[in-house]
């Protein structure tokens, strides 16, 4: 469905001269530097998959999506989506994909949602019957009815997002690209959109590529994650694998009966302390949880104790801080 091979994109960032003559001079010669936004990335997505494309801001997520949707032309490497080369067969590709950017609406700013939808029906030549069925379904699941007649510019962020996602699916695309679809939304709006995406994915077998830096999105929606940082691929595989690879470290939370001045124990680091509540980080390879707890019980009186796995957000932070671990262990790199 989606094939990405050795994909790279570099940008020339120009130095702009100001003023009338500066503008004139800009046309002929300009200083520039080269920024590598995507560097030799390869992956394959099969039909019906839901993939989380993760990375911090500026990692190259959006640039990749823009190459997959035909907005940008790759500097090198190859991309095919549904068998089309997006930047060469842009229009053919556009008919088969749906695109949503969280940062910006693709709808017409001054038109009511309904008229935007009508325009899309004309642009994509969607048959009346299919159009009516889709609008009814999206209305039911996303509750578009409440703001169907409202101009897009007057919608709240959550409403706009729902309208945009509905709009991107009107022509029954095979692939849906979502770039930060939950950015800036509240918890209720986020969960509604996640539910909808999951349903579309299972019921219609729509392939979904989701870029986000909200790990909740990924945990709720994706089995597979592709992690990129600094333009390069760090990891491609199941979320569970990623977790296993990284969860060599555990957390131990202890609630002490007294406010001991020194609660240090060997082989464990204090990561957090708030009064009598202390959190340790330890590696089971060096000390087993039972041993650690035994040491603590010998020295102090406690109220409560719990062992936890670090959450995914923490995990990924460690990946970005020290991506060497992954480079050594991951099968891809």
């Amino acid at each position, binding site marked *: 469905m989606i094939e990405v091979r050795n994909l790279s994109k570099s*940008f*020339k960032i*120009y130095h*702009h001269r100001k003023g*009338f003559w500066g*503008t*004139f001079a*800009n*046309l002929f010669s*300009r200083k520039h530097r080269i920024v590598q*936004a995507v560097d030799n990335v390869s992956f394959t997505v099969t039909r019906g998959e839901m993939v989380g494309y993760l990375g911090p801001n*500026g990692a*190259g997520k*959006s*640039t990749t999506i*823009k190459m997959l*949707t*035909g*907005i*940008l*032309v790759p500097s090198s490497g190859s991309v095919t989506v549904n068998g089309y080369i997006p*930047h060469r067969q*842009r*229009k*053919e590709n*556009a*008919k088969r*994909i749906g*695109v949503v*950017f969280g*940062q*910006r609406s*693709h709808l*017409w700013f*001054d*038109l009511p949602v309904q*008229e935007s939808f009508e*325009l899309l029906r*004309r*642009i*994509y*030549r969607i048959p009346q019957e299919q159009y009516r069925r889709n609008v009814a379904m999206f209305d039911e699941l996303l509750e578009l009815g409440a703001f169907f007649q409202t101009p897009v510019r007057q919608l709240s962020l959550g409403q706009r997002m729902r309208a945009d996602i509905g709009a991107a699916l009107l022509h029954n695309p095979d692939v849906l690209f979502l770039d930060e679809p939950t950015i800036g939304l509240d918890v209720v709006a986020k969960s509604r959109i996640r539910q909808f995406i999951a349903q579309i994915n299972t019921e219609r077998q729509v392939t979904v590529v989701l870029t986000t830096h909200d790990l909740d999105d990924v945990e709720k929606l994706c089995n597979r994650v592709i992690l990129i940082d600094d333009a390069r691929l760090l990891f491609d595989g199941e979320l569970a694998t990623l977790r296993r690879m990284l969860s060599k470290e555990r957390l131990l939370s202890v609630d002490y009966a007294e406010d001991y001045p020194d609660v240090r124990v060997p082989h464990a680091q204090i990561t957090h302390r708030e009064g009598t509540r202390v959190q340790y980080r330890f590696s089971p390879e060096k000390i087993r949880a039972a041993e650690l707890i035994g040491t603590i019980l010998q020295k102090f009186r406690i109220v409560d104790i719990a062992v936890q796995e670090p959450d995914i957000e923490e995990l990924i932070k460690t990946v970005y801080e020290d991506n060497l671990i992954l480079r050594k262990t991951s099968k891809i790199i």
Partner: protein
Amino acid sequence: MHHLSLYLHFVKLRIRAQMEYRLSFLFELFAQSCIAVIDFFMIAILFARFKQLAGWTLWEVGLLYGMIGICFAFAEMFARGFDLFQDNVVRGEFDTMLIRPLDTFYQVFAHQFLLRRLGRLVQAIVVLLIASSQLAVSWTFAKVAYLLVALVGGTCFFIALAVIGATTCFWTVHSIELINIFTHGGLFMGSYPFSIYRQWFRHFFTFVIPLACVNYFPSLFLLGKSASVGVLIAPFVGCVFLGVAMLFWRWGVLRYQSTGH
């Protein structure tokens, strides 16, 4: 067929949006005509004193003025989207156009429709009609057809300038002002017979930027001043110029860098 009906739908939506502020619309329509009337009035005053300019009488210049005015007004009406294209790029709206299964040129073209240019258009037509009634031109079928083709060609010329200006936005913003020198400057220059300008200047605006083909060469033919081959093909030059501009556009789109990677 699909593209045409879709285009008309876009135009309908545009006109409706502009009509939402009816008073402002009417006022601008009025202001547009006033500016244009004063424009021609200035030329008329000049002629009241000098009678002739490089062998051209007032009504002959009226023909020049009317023709270029019509072409300019039509181009602004239809191709406004290219004038404003810079904003599309800055706001990232061009990304949206690229994910639609439609040609980008078509989408920018359909993006805007400036109805208020009607004021300028009507004024230019009136000047052209008065001028032709005052001139001893026998309006044969061939001449009328020639005039219509020339107007289409001239409109294409101004659209082409807007397209070239828009294409430069793929590399540098704020370059539209440069093209405006040729658009508005051309409108002003073209209101006078080309023979009053220096030779290098005439050559530049004939062979590099074919402004002279919009109204000067066609007027030579219509007024019976010349019927050389160059003058006969002049009405088609604007269309060719637009073709070149469209190729330039196509080339530019592939170099689009988008914003906020």
